[in-house]
């Protein structure tokens, strides 16, 4: 895997988590700007998904097994959009908490992806 991309996704996810956590702290729901942030993080995760598939297609293999790698790639791509949809119909601070939690989950998934791919 591209280490730079993994780090970028993880860092962006943590930033999104902090941002939405701050919104929740100020008792605010997610707003347009937050959704743009979610879109950016999701695009990064999509780039990672494509990169991962391309690398698999080129014959490179993750250290801890291909099935697990693909499952985590898919999970990483879906984490923030899924949380975003939940926050769309929850127009309170709890919608912001949900997105923050989703972004933290994504950051954890990135660490796992890094381990699964190996060096």
């Amino acid at each position: 895997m591209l280490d730079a991309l993994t780090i970028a996704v993880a860092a962006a996810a943590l930033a999104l988590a902090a941002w939405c956590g701050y919104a929740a702290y100020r008792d605010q729901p997610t707003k347009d700007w937050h959704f743009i942030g979610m879109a950016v993080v999701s695009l990064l995760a999509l780039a990672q998904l494509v990169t991962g598939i391309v690398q698999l297609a080129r014959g490179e293999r993750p250290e801890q097994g291909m099935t697990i790698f693909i499952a985590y790639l898919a999970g990483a791509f879906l984490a923030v959009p899924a949380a975003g949809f939940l926050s769309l119909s929850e127009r309170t601070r709890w919608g912001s908490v949900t997105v923050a939690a989703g972004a933290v989950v994504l950051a954890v998934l990135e660490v796992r992806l890094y381990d699964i791919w190996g060096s």
Partner: protein
Amino acid sequence: MTDTDTTQATAGDEKRPFDLGTGPGRVLVWFYGVFTVAAASRSIVQMILDFDRAPLAYVLSAVAAVVYGFITYSLVRGGERARRTALVCCAAELVGVLVVGTWTLVEPSAFADATVWSYCGRDYLFIPVILPVTGMMWLRRARTA
């Protein structure tokens, strides 16, 4: 994340007493959804790839996935019956994670492979222990709301 659950829900949420999936419940829906997917995909992959290696551990993961899935469904559905069954499931989940957790601590060789509940969910940031407790707190509050 879940430690903020104890703060007051906004007044608007209190009007519909049987909505379990809104307000703080929305965060629980998210976490239970994630754990349903995590436990289910984990057990399915392991069962297909190598069931004989640790049948007990894989069946336990599958059971955990079913319990998580059912709680997620109950939270989304809402209503008094869903609230009660979810409460029972949360209790079962807590018992499960504590029993399996203690078992793996006392005798690490008991399971040939890890489950979501091994070592009280250590591999999952201890969320498997925290989740049923916050879940039961929320479900009890939801009744009085």
